[in-house]
């Protein structure tokens, strides 16, 4: 295994884990969204590194997947932020109570 690939694979794994932790323990929805975006970034990094990016032009299929993924991520984030504004507007808080509805 090429060292660059090793570095970025471990980075991806670490960022994904950090994102999961952030999502699970954060209280504000905004932070949870950041965590989700981190996880997405980690997956993209993993895809490209595994696609051979460390040694030369990476596999174009994962590149296209990542591009699609980035646009989907921004779409989902944008909608989530709009919903968050509505949440603040309707409930007076931008946090979700972990105890209701479960």
């Amino acid at each position, binding site marked *: 295994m090429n060292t660059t690939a090793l570095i970025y694979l471990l980075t991806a794994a670490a960022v*994904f884990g950090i994102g999961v932790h952030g*999502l699970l323990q954060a209280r504000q*929805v905004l932070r*949870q*969204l950041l965590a*989700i975006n981190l*996880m*997405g970034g980690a*997956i993209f990094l*993993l*895809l490209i590194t*595994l*696609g051979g990016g460390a040694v030369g032009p990476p596999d174009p*299929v*994962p590149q296209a*997947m990542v591009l*699609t*993924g980035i646009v*989907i991520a921004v*779409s*989902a984030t944008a*909608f*989530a932020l709009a*919903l*968050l504004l*509505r*949440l603040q507007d*309707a*409930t007076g808080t931008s946090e*979700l*109570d972990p105890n*209701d*509805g*479960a």
Partner: protein
Amino acid sequence: MVHEALIGLVFLPLLGACLAVLPGRFGTRLAIVVGLASLPFLLLPVTLSVLREGAWFYTLGGWSAPLGIRLYVDPLALLMLWMVALIGGLAAAHAWHDFRPGTAAGERFWPLWLLLTAAMNGLFLSADLFNLYVCLELVTLAAIPLIAMAGSATAVRAAMRYLLLALLASLAYLLGVALLYNSSGTLDLYLLPDALATAPAPVTAFALALIGTGLLLKGAVFPLHVWLPQAHASAPGPVSAVLSALVVKTAIYLLYRVGLWSLPAGLLADGAMLLFAVLGAGALIYGGVLALLQDRLKLVIAYSTVAQLGYLLLALPLASLAAWQALTYQMLSHGLAKAAMFLAAANILHAIGSDRLSDLERLDQRTPLSLFALAVAGVSIMGLPPSGGFLAKWLLLEAAWRGGQWGLLSVLILGSLLAAAYVFRVLAAALRREDPSEAEDAEGISAIGRRQATYAMLLALLALVTGFAAAPILELMATGIPPTWGAA
């Protein structure tokens, strides 16, 4: 012609959505006709071709499989597509009155609804793991605003929670797909089993675990169901109907596709199926008990969905023809019955302004047709004859008995007794008379209310009819049995 029809199933709703975004009442109406009313007519030739020639692939853009994306239509996909066309269509007819084209609410509602329809059709047809991810995201992002459209703080909160968990689920799925792509070299679901045969087993297991977790979360399978009850209960009526009848099924459908079509048979598959069965049993019992404890009608129905989804997983270890027929038939009959219940509940909520069980007394006087629809659909949910739900449960029980699965058998029975308890609890609340001498008051129900009740009743009647006309559907399903379960 049949290829055009297949493409139309995805693209007509999609173009309909574009059309509905454009201003004006006429565009939206046309969009609904083009995108929704056309679906049964498109499905007819496709169904005939599958009946005649069996399942087939369509290669998009002419780029053949590991490189390009294929569509795959087989009996299971057909069943789901018909459900989208019928249940989605009747729910749309119901929604027509609350979100009239031309009004501000209608302008917001219909493009999303059409996108949701396109996304579900696309999802049921797609044979590509990454394309399925895109479809899943489209389903999520089209469905959640529809929930929030109910406007209440509860609905907004539920939508937010659903969104966060759905995004988490999608990411878990995507990570699994990323790993699978690299280990197998393909994204095509149906090329995967061969490609995975040489892939390192731990990677496959880990990737499938991620995909499975994501789908279980999206499918609201116990104990990952926490987002479902509030989201389904607080959405507008037709949206609740489609969410419970179709949207959660998309994840279950994918779970079947990945688990039964792409998973190489072996220890891994057996373990996964057993796990699914345990989760299903948990869902059935937990959902049933919780449904019994709710004091709002729509929450009862929502928890009933949590419970009924359990049936869809419970029988997976049986791996027999009967079990397959039972699962697919449960998929259908639950969809019909649950959609009918949610539409009826919406009518009741609309008519009396509350869906608390304590406010439901004398419903047989106030909203007779909706109550009747609720009751008839309830029969199917309980699994009592004559109904599709009964046949599904019969098949499950028979499969369990033949397989000697006594634990499964007892869970099934317990589940259906719980279902009977919560359905009859609702019906009892609806027939109650606080004061027997109270004068009769046939409260005026608007013409719209009557029409909306008719849609609920139609769905309930379909649930009833599936209790008799099962043979052709089951024969078709038998030809679509997963390869790991037996020869077609």
